């Protein structure tokens, strides 16, 4: 084989070149790795989870289609409704406080401070450190006998006996919410700080000359210019608070008397510990409408408006 007809070469080259020059084909090739992983391990399980919620599958036993039986069962289940209530309470209280303190911290960090970069770096620590490990620290801080908070308060004369942080339903709820707030503040503060840094100081100068008070400057300059980023940050924050699992599982495992069970922890308990995968999947699926509502709310309620980018609002 010494010579190949030249026409054949040019034909084969042009065929390959044309294919490799086609951006749709190339795009497809480049998307394969990410697409395969996400389709197999994200999209498929999402659908599988919804399907499992309609079956009575148990650990080690394939299930049968039972229609809405799991949901009817859950509808009459007081513990499930308690977990829905806990989840709502946990999400609403923690998100509001995280937002308020986070925004405040962001405004404080946006000033000219000594060691500003260092401060910003250490403020983010609670977000960096594995949640489970800091939850262990909180578990120890909330210990019923040797809690450091109780000790300090007793020393200051505020209390006479130790607080049972995780033993009483209401105390336990407040304690886990506090731990969640502690973990969430850095994320809110640092991302909002990034938004604050893009606001031009000349706006504040102009407003000050016009006689605006500090609150008015915040209300009419900072807040409106920050809404798009607030929307995204709070969507993430609400989403991850709503589906929180780690903090609760480490500190209370849902107790005392289910007072801190969130939907995620209840679903883990029923599915993995109790073995009723179908029922657990139904609880997990029941979270989806709430999540969609949160996403849609932030998307439509707080989406970017044109005037914020220099255009006209219509």
């Amino acid at each position, binding site marked *: 084989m010494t010579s190949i007809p030249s026409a054949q070469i040019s034909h084969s080259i042009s065929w390959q070149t044309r294919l490799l020059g086609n951006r749709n084909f190339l795009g497809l090739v480049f998307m394969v790795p990410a697409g395969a*992983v*996400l389709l197999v391990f994200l999209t498929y399980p999402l659908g599988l989870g919804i399907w499992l919620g309609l079956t009575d599958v148990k650990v080690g036993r394939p299930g049968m289609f039972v229609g809405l039986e799991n949901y009817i069962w859950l509808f009459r289940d007081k513990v499930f409704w308690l977990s829905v209530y806990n989840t709502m309470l946990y999400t609403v209280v923690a998100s509001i406080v995280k937002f308020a303190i986070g925004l405040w911290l962001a405004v404080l960090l946006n000033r000219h401070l000594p060691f500003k970069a260092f401060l910003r770096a250490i403020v983010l620590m609670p977000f960096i450190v594995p949640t489970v490990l800091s939850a262990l620290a909180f578990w120890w801080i909330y210990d019923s006998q040797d809690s450091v908070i109780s000790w300090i308060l007793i020393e200051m004369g505020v209390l006479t006996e130790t607080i049972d942080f995780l033993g009483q339903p209401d105390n336990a709820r407040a304690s886990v919410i506090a731990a969640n707030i502690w973990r969430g503040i850095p994320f809110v503060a640092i991302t909002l700080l990034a938004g604050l840094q893009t606001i031009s100081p000349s706006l504040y100068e102009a407003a000050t000359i016009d006689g605006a008070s500090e609150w008015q400057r915040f209300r009419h300059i900072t807040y409106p210019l920050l809404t798009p980023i607030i929307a995204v940050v709070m969507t993430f924050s609400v989403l991850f608070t709503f589906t929180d699992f780690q903090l609760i599982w480490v500190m209370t495992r849902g107790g005392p008397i289910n007072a801190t069970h969130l939907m995620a922890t209840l679903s883990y308990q029923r599915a993995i510990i109790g073995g009723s995968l179908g029922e657990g999947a139904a609880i997990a699926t029941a979270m989806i409408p709430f999540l969609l509502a949160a996403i849609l709310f932030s998307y439509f309620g707080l989406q970017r408006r044109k005037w914020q980018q220099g255009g006209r609002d219509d």
Partner: protein
Amino acid sequence: MTETAAPKVPVKAPRKATNPHREGMDYLESLPRNVVTVYIPLAIIVFVLLFPFYWMGITSFKTNEELHAYRGLAALWVYEPTIEHIRHLLFETDYPRWLWNTMFVTITATFLSIFCAVCAAYAIERLRYKGSRSVGMLIFLASLVPPSILFIPLSIMVFQLGIFDSNWALVLTYPTILIPFCTWLLMGYFRSIPYELEECALIDGASRLQILVKIVLPLSVPGLISAGIFAFTLSWNEFIYALTFISSAENKTVPVGAVTELITFDVYNWGGLMAGAMLGSLPVAILYSFFVEHYVSSMTGAVKE
């Protein structure tokens, strides 16, 4: 990436009250007022944010007698430091094994995710194939799917694939959390690279792969580091998948091992538990301290794009 991506802190104005050249409207603020409205609230918030770490650290060096003796405010310091808890952890438990597992899973999952994310982000942002906009949007939505609604179906899949109770179960599932974030971040980064560079290379006869490897990637090293650090901390912190898919003690990761194996319910071993928490936090904390700016820019970039 956006303006704040550049790791620069605004130039600080001299803080002396007598200096007339302070920046902007600083002259309107007096020191006593600042102390009340800025420094005190800031100090309180920072104290609360850091106290658990202090308490974690101090506890892991205390002897068991010191831990349970009521000492009032004196408990805030350690008087007879001991490394017994750390020694016990490193030489008499599976802890080093967990560290190794976590390291392996985290690094493998991070590299796998970065590879997938680079390809996907380049295709979406630069090849602009038909429908790339909607694919970009779908990837953003994928980052909103929380692990707590996926772990049950995934546990069944992991079991059927025969990788239950192995590191691979985690290496394959962690990227579902990491890829969306990394892709979203890198898309922003690639957007900032001028098209002209690619066009020149195309005219010179470079293939798309060559362009990606020789032009785009070297220019986006900061973005790659940001995405890598972010992915590393996310997978180091992951808990629910590791808790569900791993059952034997020697295959656990640090967070799961600390919670399930170090807790002994007869005697609370607080010193050992806190030592475990501290040692497990140190690797991410150290990595983070080297790449603070990258980390911050990736976090804020992911939100702002």
